[in-house]
């Protein structure tokens, strides 16, 4: 079991999370916990970078099924991020993905409040351009 503590964070400005080969279903509740625990007034940037192995399209998707392996529960992450965006006008949430346009639209669909607030930034890398 692994714990990443973000409790005492009076000066935290940037939180960058790079994810590879982690089942995305497990991320939303963990991110929600981490984001809601950040009390730093300086927190203005959260980056979620997903490498290729984390974001495969769902080959078995039928009508009504999710088209990617993104899990449910991202709405609470969207809410937690929005709470930070309300506190700071310059707060930005950057999602970096290695995939195509369809997934970019899916990401926007997962974070509607951040999208409408103008705080959601998405950058896309071509497969094989893994910058690790």
């Amino acid at each position, binding site marked *: *079991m*692994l*714990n*990443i*503590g*973000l*409790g*005492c*964070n*009076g*000066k*935290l*400005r*940037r*939180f*960058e*999370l*790079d*994810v*590879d*080969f*982690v*089942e995305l279903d*497990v991320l939303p509740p*963990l*991110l929600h*916990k*981490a984001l*809601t*625990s950040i009390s730093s007034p*300086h927190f203005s940037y959260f980056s979620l970078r997903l490498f290729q192995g984390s974001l495969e399209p769902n080959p078995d998707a039928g009508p009504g099924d999710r088209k990617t392996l993104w899990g449910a529960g991202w709405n609470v992450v969207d809410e937690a991020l929005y709470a930070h965006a309300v506190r700071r006008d310059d707060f930005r949430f950057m999602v970096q993905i290695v995939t195509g346009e369809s997934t970019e639209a899916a990401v926007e669909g997962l974070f509607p409040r951040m999208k409408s607030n103008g705080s959601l930034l998405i950058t896309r890398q071509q497969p094989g351009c893994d910058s690790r």
Partner: protein
Amino acid sequence: MGLPRELIDGIMRFNDLQTLKSCSLTSKALYSATRPLIHRRMVLGVGSLLRGCSYEILSLETVRDQADVFHARYLSEAEERGLLRYGYVREVDLDLRAGNPENTLQLPQLRALGTVDTLRIQSLDLHRFLPIFPRCFSQFVPTLRSLTLEDAQCKNAHQLIEFICRFPHLDDLALINPCGSGGSAFVGTPPWLEGPRPQRRLPLTCHLVLNGTDSLAQCLLDLPGGICFRSVSTRSCLKNLAKLLAACSSTLEILNIFCFESSECGTLTLAPIH
């Protein structure tokens, strides 16, 4: 030239490389003012890496120009001819991965470099080099602020920390994939069993990059005065990560975590600490 040195330095910083090179040929004063801007990084390889040479190779790179290649002995010759008197070499990369290990004993030739603030070493065998530290690395001690050790070979975490503690002005520290001698997986023994505990407090206030073991993280936590990094970048499979972040909690501004699914960390949990 009649102008204060800092003013000349300020003006020079806005010139492109070709202009700097031209300026450096006009007078001794402009040579010393432009030299730090022309040459910045020094990359050192060992043994037959370039052009089939059988001895140590030194590559002296210009900031924006292609690299020129010299033999390692260039350093000594450069020192004898006074070319290093202006102290323009600030960063040194040492790559000890390839070649005959005996060639690494030529490292004392680096003694000519007395103003280096950034040192990156790949595949340093600490077990061999700690006993001859004064001969190989003492010239870096007064000025070194940033140290990167990648794939360092050591018997335990203590050796690594002992090496780090020899540089009392360190602000930045990067420890990437330390391993046991012979390339085996790094297994840390309980710290401070094999030697005296360091007494001096290191600054360690800027950046920490740590891809290592829990015992190494614990050694960092046990340093005299602790740690207070402003930026931490690490892999999440460290069990001591929460403690590490807690130690830096009053200063931490930037946190980068790389999560990956592996046999070492089957379950990932992000949780606040209280």
